[in-house]
């Protein structure tokens, strides 16, 4: 266990500096940031407030107490239950996602201290096949839950996903059940479970572990729901209300506990685990 003693909040992680003079642009307003300034601002635009997408490993670094992050390797055998081929065979699509993201699968799982409270972080990567929930992701999340129970840690899941992984068909649907077993075990063990919903979060992820938490935090502007807006428009010809399915819309409808700016996220998580982390060890 790598949690340090002491009652003061541990300072946040130091993001890697780059010496590159390249600039990156805010995906919303186009404002340009020199070097690593955008990364150091946690990928939040200082001009328009847009919360840009964060890869899973970087997300874990942003949340963990400095020096406590311990990535847990999760190896899951590749599965192709349907022999799915929609022009490109499914295993080839997975291989492509691995090459593009450098990740094995959707979830990065890590042990970490969060304000000195031992926690398991399960962070999703939207860039890996749209964060879709396949059997490997389901297994990773289930193992994250079991790790939390075995070592009596809080569970924090950062959720971002388009929903089920269509290429795994019905096996993908079953992952909603598998992940729900995990969250039930964490709840039965009396351990706190907090989710952070990042843009976008839809389908079977929202309809299972993303919303089975003690506390649901949404990031500003994140689009969250079950069915996507386009599907709803096509199916019902309803006009979508202003701000439909945004974090703020869901807050107003009582579906999330709070909308938290990413630059304040860590301190909110520290406070919540402080309040609810009594049964961790």
């Amino acid at each position, binding site marked *: 266990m790598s949690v340090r003693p002491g009652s003061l909040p541990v300072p946040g992680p130091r993001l890697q500096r780059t010496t590159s003079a390249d600039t990156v642009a805010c995906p919303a307003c186009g404002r340009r940031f020199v070097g690593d300034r955008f990364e150091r601002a946690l990928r939040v635009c200082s001009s328009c407030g847009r919360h840009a997408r964060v890869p899973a490993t970087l997300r874990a670094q942003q949340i963990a107490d400095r020096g406590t992050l311990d990535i847990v390797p999760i190896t899951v055998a590749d599965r192709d239950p349907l022999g799915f081929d929609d022009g490109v065979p499914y295993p080839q699509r997975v291989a492509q996602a691995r090459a593009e993201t450098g990740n094995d699968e959707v979830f990065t799982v890590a042990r970490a201290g969060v304000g000195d409270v031992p926690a398991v972080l399960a962070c999703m990567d939207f860039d890996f096949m749209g964060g879709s929930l396949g059997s490997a992701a389901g297994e990773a999340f289930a193992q994250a839950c079991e790790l939390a129970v075995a070592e009596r840690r809080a569970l924090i899941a950062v959720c971002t996903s388009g929903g089920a992984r269509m290429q795994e068909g019905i096996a993908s*649907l079953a992952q909603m059940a*598998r992940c729900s077993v995990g969250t*039930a075990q964490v709840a039965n063990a009396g351990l706190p479970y907090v989710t952070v919903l990042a843009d976008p979060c839809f389908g079977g992820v929202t*309809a299972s572990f993303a919303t089975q938490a003690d506390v649901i935090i949404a990031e500003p502007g994140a689009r969250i729901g079950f*069915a996507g807006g386009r599907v*709803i428009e096509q199916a019902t010809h*309803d006009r979508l209300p202003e701000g439909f399915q945004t974090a703020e819309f869901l807050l107003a409808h009582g579906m999330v506990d709070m909308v938290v700016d990413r630059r304040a996220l860590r301190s909110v998580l520290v406070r919540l685990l402080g309040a609810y982390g009594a049964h961790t060890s």
Partner: protein
Amino acid sequence: MTTVAPTTELAERERDAFARVELARHPSRPRALQVIARAFSDFTEQRGDRLFGDDRAVVGGPARLDGAWVMVIGQEKGVDAMSRAVHNFGMPHPEGYRKQQRLMRIAEKFGLPVVFLIDTPAAHPGVGAEERGQAWAIAESLTATLQLRVPVVSAVLSEGGSGGALALGLGDRVLAWENAVYTVAPPETCAAILYRDAGQRARAALAMRPGVDTAYELGLVDELVPEPWPGAHEHPDVAIAALRGALVRNLAELKDVDVETLLAQRLDRYRRAGG
């Protein structure tokens, strides 16, 4: 290397795959209320979620099966134009899932086993459903079912689509009529996601293998209930009798299992679900 089938043969296979979906959607297949009327007795419907409204896509209440009281909760598609509108084509809103949870709590309180009957293309995609937490309601149904301290048997009648079906799809035993389909999403939605064209639903149907035999192979369904040729739509009474027999037998097997064992087995089963 994969071998590419001649175009005509591929088109034929796509047509066959989608024909399975169409058979499962056949308007004459027995619906949940018909199954309840013919296989159960003394059904006493309870309505409303006590929070917002009554969703007629989900019907439920106590009923007797082979003499013993159970809580039966089903998705109802309707049988004609008017009843389809009333039951919203079997597509539940959050209120339907919250009514389900309410009835499950009553079943647990009085020790009644729960029987789910699944028949839905998907949970309703709509503005109101999203505003009132469709995803939250489904997620809660999953958690509630996994922890329910009475036996649960679920049966896929005809169409099981998406998380909207899975909310009633967890159980100690899951049965399905052999001509039913069980999919992660309706083939139309799957095509819209994969090919950005809902019109390619036949292509999606072939790729996703929608028949319940796939769910059976993957362990999400335990037993396929036979239908008389050419299907339950032609001989509903025979099909319903077979389903009734399977429900009675499975409930009898679960009746004397200690509740802690039941819960441990249920969690273990879904811990391994889908490989």
